[in-house]
């Protein structure tokens, strides 16, 4: 193992600190966690990986298939099996496998914003971060605080360019108007982590909803009862919403012209490249969506350790960030976690009206938020 640079040492310190500081009642749990530091070269890992079995990757992103294909070309003799699941199902399968002592995979790629990934897989030590030194030194600092993020995205509002040549709204309250009934699509927040992160986080932005209403209506929002402006907004707009299983259905409805608007993950903007009729709403009062990110982690019971490390290196773009493994993720609607790799999206995250989810608050308020969204969904 090579000498660890000062910056990396600081990064590792931050990660270990973050892990030990997790809000887990059991101190023993956090002690189980280990930050994997292995400065073996790709060549050394490859040599060892050739003696291992097929690498199993559980992912929430179909784009990993492209990474897998490039990986198998770059490292002949290594094989990757990809299982593509929605976040809640992925967490459940990984958790169950670990619980019964038969781990289902070696590497996990998951949306990490709702708090579920953290509480169920990270805090329990089922997945652990691996970040090689030569790549870690090039990552933005917030990309490795307790977990290794490999991609930034957003849950953001889109409009259908089949229906509108330019975005017809400026204020989120316009979506509550009768003319949009059945014309707004949203993935089920209880089944989509990125949607949950947005919907649940928005409930903490009451003042911004109130101010936006005043801009929209010209008067202050008067609400009877105990409801706040955020809750009122979602209850009202949900009458116009068609809930879906995933972002894919939202993009398809926008492309078909069945939807005027829809929230989905920003990386779906890449579909505009194959002619999908959709465009993001970057500017919206008070906000258009929320930031999200994706983590790549090893499972603690990983059977193919060297293959897993090699794959993660590959996915992170290798030392110079130019590796083929990261390329499938450098598309419109994505933002880089590395300082040396440009964003995939033309418009920077800072120029978009987005909120940042407070993950700990999401975890703390989970019961209340889930109850709120369950009521909305049943009412829909």
């Amino acid at each position, binding site marked *: 193992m090579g000498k660890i640079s000062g910056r990396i040492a600081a990064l590792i310190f931050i990660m270990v600190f973050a892990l030990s500081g997790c809000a887990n009642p059991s101190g023993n749990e956090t002690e189980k966690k280990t930050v994997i530091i292995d400065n073996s070269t790709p060549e050394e890992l490859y040599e060892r990986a050739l003696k291992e079995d097929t690498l199993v990757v559980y992912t929430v992103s179909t784009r990993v298939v492209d990474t897998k294909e490039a990986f198998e070309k770059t490292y002949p003799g290594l094989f990757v099996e990809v299982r593509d699941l929605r976040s809640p199902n992925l967490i459940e399968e990984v958790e169950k496998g670990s619980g019964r002592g038969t781990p289902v995979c070696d590497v996990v790629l998951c949306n990490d914003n709702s708090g579920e990934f953290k509480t169920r897989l990270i805090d329990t030590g089922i997945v652990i971060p691996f970040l090689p030194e030569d790549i870690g030194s090039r990552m933005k600092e917030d990309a490795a605080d307790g977990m290794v993020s490999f991609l930034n995205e957003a849950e953001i509002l889109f409009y259908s360019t089949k229906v509108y040549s330019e975005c017809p709204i400026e204020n989120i309250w316009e979506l509550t108007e009768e003319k949009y009934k059945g014309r707004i699509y949203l993935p089920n927040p209880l089944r989509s982590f990125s949607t949950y992160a947005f919907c649940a986080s928005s409930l903490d932005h009451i003042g911004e909803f109130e101010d936006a209403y005043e801009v929209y209506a010209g008067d202050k929002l008067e609400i009877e009862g105990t409801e706040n402006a955020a809750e009122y907004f979602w209850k009202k707009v949900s009458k116009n919403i068609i809930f879906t299983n995933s972002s894919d259905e939202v993009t398809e*409805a926008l492309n078909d012209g069945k939807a005027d608007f829809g929230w989905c993950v920003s990386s779906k903007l890449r579909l505009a490249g194959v002619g999908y009729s959709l465009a993001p709403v970057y500017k919206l009062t008070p906000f258009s969506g929320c930031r999200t990110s994706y983590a790549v982690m090893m499972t603690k019971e990983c059977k193919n350790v060297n293959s897993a490390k090699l794959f993660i290196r590959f996915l992170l773009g290798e030392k110079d960030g130019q590796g083929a493994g990261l390329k499938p993720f450098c598309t419109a609607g994505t933002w880089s976690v590395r300082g040396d790799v440009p964003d995939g999206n033309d418009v920077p995250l800072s120029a978009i009206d987005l909120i940042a989810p407070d993950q700990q608050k999401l975890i703390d308020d989970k019961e209340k938020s889930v109850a709120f969204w369950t009521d909305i969904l049943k009412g829909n």
Partner: protein
Amino acid sequence: MDTPRRKLDRQDMRKRKQIPTLTWIISILCLFGLCLNGCTPKEGREKLSVAIPESAHIQDLGNNYYINWLQEQTGYDLDIMIIRQSSGTGILDALFSSDADIDIVMFGEDFKITQEELSEYVSSGDIYVSGERSYYENTGSSKNSGPGQILWINYNWLKALSLPIPENTEELKAVLTAFKEMDPNGNGIKDEIPMAGSYEEYSLSPAEFLLNSFIYNDPYHSRYGINEDVNILYATTDEFRAGIDYCHELYEEGLLDDSIWDGNLKQLMEMCNSNQDIVGAFTTSSISDVIYQGNPEILARYIHVPPIEGPCGEKNTLYVQKEPEIGAFITKRSNKKEQAERLLSLMLTPEASLIARYGEEGVDWTYSDGSDVSVYGGVSTITTVNYIWDTSQNKHLNGIGPMNVPEEYLEGVTWNGVNSDFEYINGRAYMSYEDDLPKVREVHLYDDKLSDYMDAALEEFIRGKKDIGSDKEWARYLEGLPR
């Protein structure tokens, strides 16, 4: 479909033959491949001998949750004989030529039989008929009605060539031309097949799909109209002729592959699943008709294309209503017909059918509280906890045998969260096609003779054996139509 399968079944209509002794001995050995459970029946309980096809999706028939449930409910012991063959008629011929003591034969997975084939066994007196019932149906694997033909296109090729998903016939032609000319699979060889198909099913023929961009084309109902036009043969119209002309143009330019007429389904599957990535587009009623299960990489290669608009703004979605498949029958020789009827009738109840489709209630699925979205976009009625369909499991028979899942549950089942799940992929495609379905679904009956004539004429026109541009040829075609 509510009509016979395309050419294959009609050509291969089974004739009962004398079976050589050795063949039937081997067949019977295959039939009695395994004897489970009932080999040691519990004392005092009735025993029913049931032949069930082998399935890679069932771990242990001797201790299967559904089998145990059926035994518990009926009080019978089921003596399971595993069928190790996929030829429905071959094994039945062997069975009925032997003295095998089988009360019930169940169908499912690859072991299937058509109505026509079944009727021959009914005529020969091998199958027990009670009233009008000669078999127990299976209507529980998927939604019973909806879009019947979807166009799938190679997404990787579109990306590689920076091409948009085609929306109309002109764009489609441009995309297929680029597929042919621009080496989208990047191997330096012109091995791309822009649009492939098979003769085995109408839904596998892109030509049938493309005609729907000119006029409603329902080959499963002999290309008659729908709604109030149910007695008008659309295949005589100028629009239909323009559609054939378009298909001929594509064929002449090498964009429509000969496999549409010369290839069987197996060949189409091999082409579409090939690691060489050689197919640009194809059509099916379900993606699972062609793409192998458990192959997310290949699945990620193809995405559905919404209905293609023709030059006059026409676009239609073929509507199909599936007819129940044959789930099981009782043999005439059975001396426990009443018990067999009781068992099979139980399997058709919603309670049994839900186990047969989704597994153990409370463990594998629950009734939904309405807070989920179904795989077809509606409100959910069934929430799957463990999605076990088409996986190796021991909760049910994976669609083998009779079942009758109420439509509200088939349409209301939640997605299992697996992006490569066939039902989810199909469900999303169906949503894109639904708006272009005929509004009223009154249909004409299938006419064998007429369809055969039109199938042959279509092939000849598209492949250029006859000139679609010639008014004389077209008039001859119209004159020759069997009425």
